[in-house]
């Protein structure tokens, strides 16, 4: 965990120093996507290799899924409420300026449309 934070901080400092060179950031989102695909593939292999998880998945997996869905659902619900009352204004302001990924752009536009 600590290593990850240190590595990211180094990246952040490098990014901050080089922020004037816009060309460096053009392909960054795409590269991040590809690395995520690779990471998910590797995570899949680890899960597939774990015999305990695979063999008992239907039994304990169902309970785990139920707890996870309830936790995720509850936290997303409250986070949506917090966003609605405290963060919405900032989002609209910044959403128009930032060249974000199409998924976020769509939602930003949708939010603007609904709340304008």
């Amino acid at each position, binding site marked *: 965990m600590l290593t990850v934070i240190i590595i990211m901080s180094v990246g952040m400092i490098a990014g901050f120093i080089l922020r004037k060179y816009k060309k460096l950031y053009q392909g960054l989102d795409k590269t991040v996507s590809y690395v995520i695909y690779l990471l998910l593939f*590797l995570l899949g292999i680890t899960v597939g290799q774990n015999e305990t998880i695979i063999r008992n998945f239907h039994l304990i997996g169902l309970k785990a899924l139920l707890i996870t869905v309830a936790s995720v659902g509850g936290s997303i619900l409250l986070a949506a409420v917090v966003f609605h009352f405290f963060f919405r204004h900032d989002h609209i302001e910044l959403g128009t300026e930032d060249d974000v990924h199409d998924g976020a752009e769509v939602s930003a536009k949708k939010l603007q449309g609904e709340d304008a």
Partner: protein
Amino acid sequence: MKNSLIILAFFAAGVLLGALGDAGGWIPEALGSMSTYVLYVLMCLVGFGIGGDTDSLRVLKETNLKIVLVPLSIVAGSLGGAALISVFVQGLDLQEVLAISGGFGYYSLSSLFITELRGELPGTIALLANIMREIITLLMTPLFVRWAGPLGPIASGGATSMDTTLPIISLYSGKQYAVISLFNGIVLTVLVPFLVPFILSF
């Protein structure tokens, strides 16, 4: 949605290869540690993007105190949701369900604590549940942003919102939210080793 499907396809291919390859014995040992290094590369790239993005620093200045509301709402929402469904989970009591939920995706540590305090079955369920939390976030972030706004995947990611799920959150919620995501992940990660034993101590 298209991106979620691509991610799901990569993950499913990995599971298949892992299950088949493990039986055949042709998966190199180094693969497990390799993903750690891939994560490092990813985090460096993400950091580079955040550092070069002047908007994110401005957001942290503008958001100031209300940023604390993000981890607070996630703790309350997770535990509340888990408490509601605990009656349907056979074989686990309320405390165990809450402790599993209180891992916030930090599966290695929370499952270890729960195994030690309550035995292997709740420990294994904790491991699975918290891995699922990470996987669900990775797969469904585009949908969560559409349903609940940019804080949606941060809530879903929980403690993982500072590392493994940060790249995809930054991609779909926008880079301005990467700082909030990081802050949230750090707070929840620090909280887990205190909260899980605390829940089980009653």
